[in-house]
């Protein structure tokens, strides 16, 4: 009976199939019985038609990192910004742990040796998150994160409420959003607490409480949605308010520091699906799953199984959402065109501008879409690139004139959806 529900759910979920415009799910080569279909966010995004016009960033605006800074940040370091700070973390070449370096105005202001424990850390997938005041940091992995005050690990967060976490700090507390796992997560029944996706707690993990939930006004994909169709991130503005951004749908909430909704806006731009990137994700998935499913499907000691599977493909529209001052920065995900486009959105959500940094970034022309991801970091005053390592000042970017601006001066109209 529940399988029937799954089939029906699958039918509802079916958006345009991968690589096609027809709603028919596509078969997965390599796993007979498995089909792919898009999550409902793809259909949802078709409603937004604002044309994307990204200004190419002139190379003369790019400032290479000073030698003394570049020498302190190895290529494999994970780099993050917050407020006026830029931080880097990397495996200690001389020891077991990790080295953390904090910079302000391009000068080293702190160096710490971190020894994360209680969870697995590897350089790939490791992300650094800084508090705006530089007091705390988090080492974030795909399934857990640890909070450090100076070099002491003061909190470890893991479990289903911490899957693929997006982390921020606010006034001595830690905030995070999770990516709900699995298609069979059920929605709460009437009268139950709404499905929480973001939480707040003390730095040691105590006093955990929901910060933001998938309430009716947040479930833009309802009724044919699933918790796994949403993927929120949280970041702290200079004024203490929060940006809560659903990277999957492009819905943006400005909230108080406690998560009370103040304004809602939807990223209004029409992005094009990157079919090549979709195919790469599909092929990667087939390779991964077929290795694990194989023994189950070819067990000679058991009667042969019939196998039927559906895979919902969710490629987030946005890969990054971050505060710079009170403004909001959004980066489009690889899997959509244009990828790695940097959107600056004003603090009042009335203006949005797009900047293309592809030509500044050193990426091999034939790189797979997986490798097209451009590593960026944001501080209040600059956009940092990792390859080549350097920065562009926001004031220089925002001073760039839009084409035709001289003919039609004045503020751009507010983006729709406010």
């Amino acid at each position: 009976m529940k399988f029937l529900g799954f089939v029906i759910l699958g039918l509802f979920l079916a958006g345009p199939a991968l690589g096609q415009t027809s709603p028919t799910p596509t078969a997965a080569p390599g796993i007979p019985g498995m089909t792919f279909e898009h999550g409902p966010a793809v259909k949802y995004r078709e409603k937004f038609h604002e044309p994307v016009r990204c200004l190419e960033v002139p190379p003369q605006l790019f400032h290479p990192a000073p030698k003394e800074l570049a020498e302190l940040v190895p290529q494999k370091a994970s780099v993050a910004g917050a407020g006026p700070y830029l931080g880097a973390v990397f495996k200690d070449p001389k020891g077991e742990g990790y080295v953390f370096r904090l910079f302000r105005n391009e000068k080293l202001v702190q160096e710490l040796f971190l020894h994360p424990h209680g969870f697995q850390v590897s350089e790939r997938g490791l992300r650094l998150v800084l508090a705006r005041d530089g007091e705390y940091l988090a080492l974030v992995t795909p399934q857990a994160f640890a909070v450090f005050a100076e070099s002491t690990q003061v909190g470890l967060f893991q479990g289903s409420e911490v899957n693929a976490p997006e982390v921020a700090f606010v006034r001595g507390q830690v905030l995070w959003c999770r990516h709900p796992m699995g298609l069979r997560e059920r929605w709460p029944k009437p009268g139950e607490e709404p499905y929480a996706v973001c939480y707040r707690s003390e730095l040691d993990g105590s006093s955990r409480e929901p910060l933001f939930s998938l309430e009716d006004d947040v479930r833009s994909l309802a009724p044919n949605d699933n918790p796994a169709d949403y993927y929120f991130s949280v970041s702290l503005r200079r004024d203490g308010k929060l940006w809560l951004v659903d990277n999957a749908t492009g819905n943006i909430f400005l909230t108080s520091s406690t998560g009370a909704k103040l304004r809602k806006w939807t990223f209004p731009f029409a992005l094009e699906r990157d079919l090549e990137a979709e195919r790469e994700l599909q092929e990667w998935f087939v390779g991964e799953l077929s290795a694990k499913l194989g023994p189950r499907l070819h067990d000679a000691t058991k009667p042969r199984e019939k196998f039927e599977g559906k895979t919902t493909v969710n490629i987030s529209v946005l890969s990054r959402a971050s505060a710079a001052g009170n403004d909001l920065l959004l980066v489009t995900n690889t899997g959509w065109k244009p990828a790695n486009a940097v959107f600056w959105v004003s603090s009042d959500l009335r203006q949005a501008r797009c900047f293309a940094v592809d030509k500044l970034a050193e990426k091999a022309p034939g790189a797979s879409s997986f490798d097209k991801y451009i590593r960026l970091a944001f501080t209040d005053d600059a956009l940092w690139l990792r390859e080549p390592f350097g920065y562009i000042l926001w004031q220089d970017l925002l001073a760039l004139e839009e084409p035709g601006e001289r003919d039609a001066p004045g503020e751009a109209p507010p983006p729709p959806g406010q």
Partner: protein
Amino acid sequence: MLDNLKNWALGQSKRLAAAAALVVALAASQPAYALYAACVSTSTQCSYSYHCELFYDDDTSTGIEWGGSFYLC
């Protein structure tokens, strides 16, 4: 006394053989069962990941498979 023991042992082995045959017959007559997978495959910042829930016709779970591949962030 020894004969009694032999007869008892023979009886036991026949019963065991019959029980084993019954198990084999049951297994042979059992219809092929169906395995279903409900998966989500995701691409987001620095990663590809997937999460699959596997279950049978009667909705009993037979496990979860998941994995990921990660960029330098």
